[in-house]
């Protein structure tokens, strides 16, 4: 899951970046509206976390441009303005949710999960795939009701594959969802994580299509 964070305050941006990274999301952090527009144009994000008090292109303008371009990317607004009028204005401009500073990191990550879930077209808080249950909130994964220990990266790869069950995900796409711009990616990192996931959850779950990518098949309806 790849998140674009637009925050001009270096201290707050750093905190939100660290908090979201703890949840296993890949976070790209830009500090002004223009850089945000460039990043959005390149695509590949599952969520936009936007501070409204931006220098350069104001946050609401950015949001407006995004929606006018028919981009349905889920957007969570961060702002210092807490009047009802301000909140309504933010939501009416096309934001999906709204958090007033100073917010709680727990609440931020919970709202991020909701928006990502809705973005993936799911309403249930947990992802079920056969005998596997993945809870994005608690980062818990169970196989046949028994807990499975996963590293944060393994969890992130599994979440990405299950969210997109039935689709082939390229190695580059998985790498993107694991790492922000600022992290060095080892060339075989994805292969290593997939290898451990197969060992823990059974070799049949993740299929490799040589030269194309990885696939988790759609769960069969019971």
């Amino acid at each position, binding site marked *: 899951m790849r998140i674009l964070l637009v925050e001009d*305050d270096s*201290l707050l941006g750093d*905190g939100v970046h660290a908090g979201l990274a*703890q949840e296993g999301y890949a976070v790209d952090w830009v500090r*002004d509206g223009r850089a945000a527009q460039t990043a959005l144009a390149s695509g590949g994000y599952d969520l936009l976390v936007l501070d409204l008090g931006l220098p350069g292109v104001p946050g609401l303008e950015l949001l407006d441009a995004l929606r006018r371009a028919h981009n349905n990317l889920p957007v969570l607004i961060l702002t210092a*303005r807490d009047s009802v009028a301000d909140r309504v204005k933010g939501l009416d401009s096309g934001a999906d949710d709204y958090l007033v500073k100073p917010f709680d*990191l727990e609440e931020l990550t919970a709202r991020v999960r909701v928006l990502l879930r809705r973005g993936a077209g799911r309403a249930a808080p947990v992802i079920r795939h056969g005998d596997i249950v993945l809870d994005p909130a608690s980062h818990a994964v169970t196989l046949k009701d028994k807990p499975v220990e996963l590293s944060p990266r393994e969890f992130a790869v599994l979440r990405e594959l299950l969210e997109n069950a039935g689709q082939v995900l390229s190695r580059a796409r998985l790498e993107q969802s694991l790492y922000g711009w600022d992290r060095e990616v080892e060339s075989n990192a994805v292969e290593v994580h997939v290898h451990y996931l197969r060992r823990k959850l059974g070799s049949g779950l993740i299929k490799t299509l040589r030269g194309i990518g990885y696939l988790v098949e759609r769960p069969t309806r019971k």
Partner: protein
Amino acid sequence: MMTREHPAADKALASMTAPSLRRRLLLLLLSSIALLWVGTAAISFAAARHEIGELFDAQLAQSAQVIMAQAQYQLEQVATEVEEFQHRYEQKLAFQIWDARGRLLLRTANAPMVRMSDSDAGFSDTVIGGAVFRVFSRWERDGRFLIQVGQSEEIRDELASDIVLILLTPVLFGFPVLALLIWASVGRSLAPLDQTTKEVGNRAPGNLTPIGSAQAPAEIRPLINALNDLFLRLQEAFESERRFTADAAHELRTPLAALKTHCQVALRASAEPERRRALNQVINGVERAAQVVHQLLTLARVDPESALAGFEPVDLHALAEKVLSDFGSQAVERRIDLALEEGAGPRVSGDPGTLGVLLSNLVDNALRYTPEGGAVSVRALLLDGAPVLEVEDTGPGIPPDQRSRVFERFYRLPGSERQGSGLGLSIARRVAELHRAEIQLGDGAEGRGLRVRVRFPAI
């Protein structure tokens, strides 16, 4: 000193001693009417007295003829005393008839034995027995007889007084009625003032909407307009305070949000370096919030009244020396060449404390935005007779269209990261305003960087 225990009594006392428009108007109008009345009475008396004099004189002359006609048979005897003549004012009418040789032929009892008047013809005034008499003298029958008819003048004054009194009696009775009318009409005229007083008095403290002046008379309108002006200025002041408080609160929210986030990141961190890093960020956040608070307090303390009271001669060069010494280590650390240019510092009249805040804000800004290896130079000089303080840096400068906006509270240049409180230049401008100085922003030397010039009023 008045005690505050009986506010009602104080108020009553104040309203008694305060000049009352109604009382003043009443006093003024009544006394001028009274004066007018006395003047009218005096003029009326003089006029009446004059007319009565003419009338009585004519009567006196006529009486002389009548007496001559009636007395012709008695003129043969000498020094005859006749009964007093039958006349309406009989007591007061006296006459004598003399012959050409100076013998008194006929006289009334109240007439003396000597001639009443030395005059031979016409009217004359003379004193007989202590009373002033008007005497008419005339030679009759070809100069054979001299007749003198006299009358006390007292009657004329009496009559004139009677006439004036009759004329003025209604005015005398009208006087109290007039006073009442004046009292009432002054009250009525002042009613709009009372209404305005009530309207202002009954206002809620926060109500600063203008008072309606459509119904008010022209005399009160300037007062209402002045009040409305005051209300407007108060409202603007309140609005600016409110906006400032809101801005300040919002401004503090971002560092608070950052603090909270880093605390939670630290709590959730599984690895020690991650936790240490988050906690260090917490410290940074506290420092930043503290800086905002410090600047806010500085801004609040730049108070016009207290600052003006402490004005004294300030040597700008010495001031700059003192301020720059605080920035030395910061400049060295960032490899910025911070320099104070040589020169005899001009003196200004000002508050050294707030002027120090002004300069240190400018230097702080210059250091903040100047990249490593750059230069910040400060100079104090006289420019066209005006003391000037200049801070020049080799940073990115400020585009001309942004130069007026940077003085707004919490305004930050697009593209600049939030580092400062956003208040530095606001504070600098406020201090400059207190010293009637002007802050001008311009390009630095060779068109690079920023030059901030604080221009004080010419000596």
